[in-house]
């Protein structure tokens, strides 16, 4: 008997692989995701992962996309940009995904951009900073509104209240610093002038010296705080402690129920820009976002038993922008899907109404933010100028 040659064996193996793969690809559409499920940014990655899994199951239960089931591949980068990049390469080379929704933070997203740009695979980031989509890259999008938009939204409200001279106190953590810079840059466009600029460390116990300085700044009409976490609440309490009575604006980074609870009485009258999701039930019935955010909120809270967060909402938006683009493209070719993502118009998400274009890969305008005021322990929608 003739021994089977090595060449024939390799050939047979290759044939099996070649036959096997298209067969697999025909059955499922692979969507990749790299999220910071653990580590310091886990408060972002955790709800994002839950949201993606939840809705992949839901779409599959309803028959999938273009008759094919979705297959979600999630890697956890722990907030580490190096790991994120490695996983991105794995998604592209080994898993052969057709699109990517993920990248919980700006750092990991920026590290993954070159991988997807090179592979020509659409990448919808959930990171905050404007750098992700500016300059516009052909295959990179993002869903969360930017810090700059939050600043402009605050300025819009200030203009309506005839406020022009303002102060800022910012946390020296990444988020607080970045938003401070964006606010200072956007000041001219927003028609305001910063006449006080103070900072505090992310773990500081007492910010009354800084706030006393701000209080003693002549002519100051309002104050903005940038930063997230418990310091937002500490600053709010200190503002009341030193007796600052000028309008006080917080930022979208503290927009959660726990901020109100932690600040207690001091939160009364504080205004902040936030996504519609936070006030889902309070939106007027004619608001086009209302059904979407309510449905997401209820589904998320029922499935996970945890209160909804805007971060999971970003993942919802990214996922459905992708699903709708795939439906329109009627194809699993990443380049064709990418073309359709860029044509997204009038998509109603939790973060706002998305209108993408070749020059705008974010697609949100200021209407994505609602201006809220805290009254007696709850959010209240405010109309600009009231």
């Amino acid at each position, binding site marked *: 008997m003739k021994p089977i040659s090595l060449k024939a064996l390799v050939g047979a193996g290759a044939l099996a692989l070649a036959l096997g793969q298209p067969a697999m690809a025909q059955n499922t559409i692979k969507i990749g995701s790299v999220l910071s499920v653990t580590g310091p940014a886990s408060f972002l990655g955790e709800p994002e992962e839950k949201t993606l899994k939840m809705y992949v199951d839901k779409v599959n239960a309803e028959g999938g996309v273009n008759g094919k089931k979705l297959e979600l591949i999630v890697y956890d980068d722990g907030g580490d940009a190096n790991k994120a990049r490695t996983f991105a390469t794995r998604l592209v080379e080994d898993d052969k995904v057709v699109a990517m929704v993920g990248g919980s933070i700006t750092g990991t997203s920026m590290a993954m951009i070159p991988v997807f740009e090179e592979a020509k695979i659409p990448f919808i980031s959930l990171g905050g900073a404007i750098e992700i989509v500016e300059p516009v890259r052909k295959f990179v999008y993002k869903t969360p509104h930017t810090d700059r938009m939050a600043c402009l939204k605050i300025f819009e409200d200030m203009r309506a209240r005839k406020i022009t001279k303002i102060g800022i106190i910012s946390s020296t953590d990444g988020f607080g610093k970045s938003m401070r810079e964006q606010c200072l840059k956007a000041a001219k466009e927003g028609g305001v002038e910063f006449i006080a600029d103070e900072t505090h460390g992310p773990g500081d116990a*007492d910010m009354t*010296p800084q706030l*006393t300085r701000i209080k003693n700044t002549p002519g100051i009409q309002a104050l903005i705080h940038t930063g997230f976490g*418990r310091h937002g609440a500490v600053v709010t309490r200190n503002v009341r*402690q030193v007796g600052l009575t000028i309008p006080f604006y917080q930022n979208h980074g503290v927009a959660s129920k726990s901020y109100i609870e932690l600040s207690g009485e001091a939160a009364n009258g504080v205004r902040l820009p936030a996504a519609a999701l936070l006030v889902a039930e309070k939106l007027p019935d004619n608001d086009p976002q209302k059904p979407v955010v309510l449905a997401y909120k209820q589904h998320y809270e029922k499935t996970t038993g945890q209160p909804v967060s805007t971060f999971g909402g970003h993942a919802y938006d990214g996922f459905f922008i992708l699903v709708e683009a795939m439906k329109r493209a009627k194809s699993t070719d990443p380049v064709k899907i990418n073309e359709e993502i860029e044509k997204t118009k009038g998509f109603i998400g939790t973060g706002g109404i998305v209108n993408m274009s070749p020059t705008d890969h974010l697609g949100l305008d200021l209407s994505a933010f609602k201006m809220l005021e805290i009254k007696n322990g709850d959010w209240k929608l405010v109309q600009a100028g009231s």
Partner: protein
Amino acid sequence: MPEFLQFLFSGLTVGAVYAMVALGFTLIYNASDVVNFAQGEFVMIGGMVTAFLGYAGVPLPLAALLAIAVAIVVGLLLHALAIEPARGASAVTLIIITIGASIFLRGAAQVIFDKQAHKIPAFSGDAPITFMGAAILPQSLWVLGGAVVTFVAIFLFMDRTLLGKAVLATASNRLAAQLVGINTRTVMALSFGASAAIGALAGILITPITLTSYDAGILLALKGFAAAMLGGMGNPLGAVLGGILLGLFEQFSAGYVSSSYKDAVAFITILLVLFVMPSGLLGRRAVERV
């Protein structure tokens, strides 16, 4: 003048907490030559346990006592399970063990509690007291009062009780202490328990002002360590002085210079002091005189 008073009280409040953390460092350092970097976690445990017991409906004073008890148990376990088995290892090894313990405690707190921030209601309400134009939280007075009581208690214990003398003897010369029949192992366990209790008390007093979360201890440990170095590592009085001074430096530079440089000002001051007086403001020698 109102600003000066505002900065002063702010500095004293923050400084009192640093001083309590520094005192915890000092107690353990004296008994064992270990710089216990898990000191900040005791502060976190004090705040978190009280907050969660409070949510569960336990009255605040009882919750605070239980929190201190929990911290003491954790402190004793830290000594028995991590430090004691490595006895005879170099001080550096032991210090690294405490860093490991602090990471472990933070991780455990994430799992047992959660990753959110929590608060304890202020003991005497949130309405600030206006004193010559400065707004002072009643809780600040609690912090200052609590710190003073703690310091006095520690000094009385050291000065008036046999056990306290044993601690002091162990601090000045461990071998000699052993030779005169002092059980230095008990002294070490005692110092871990006492440090944990002081840390937890600091956490309970400060949480109504600063709130707390599983990672609240990291920064406090760093600041407390800096304070202990400034005052002279190993000297309880130095720890108190160092803590108060560090708090005042920080808040006055935030108020009069610029908040961007407040940590820099504080740490540069410490460096300068250590250049001139390498063993801190009140160096080791003072310990022997107590």
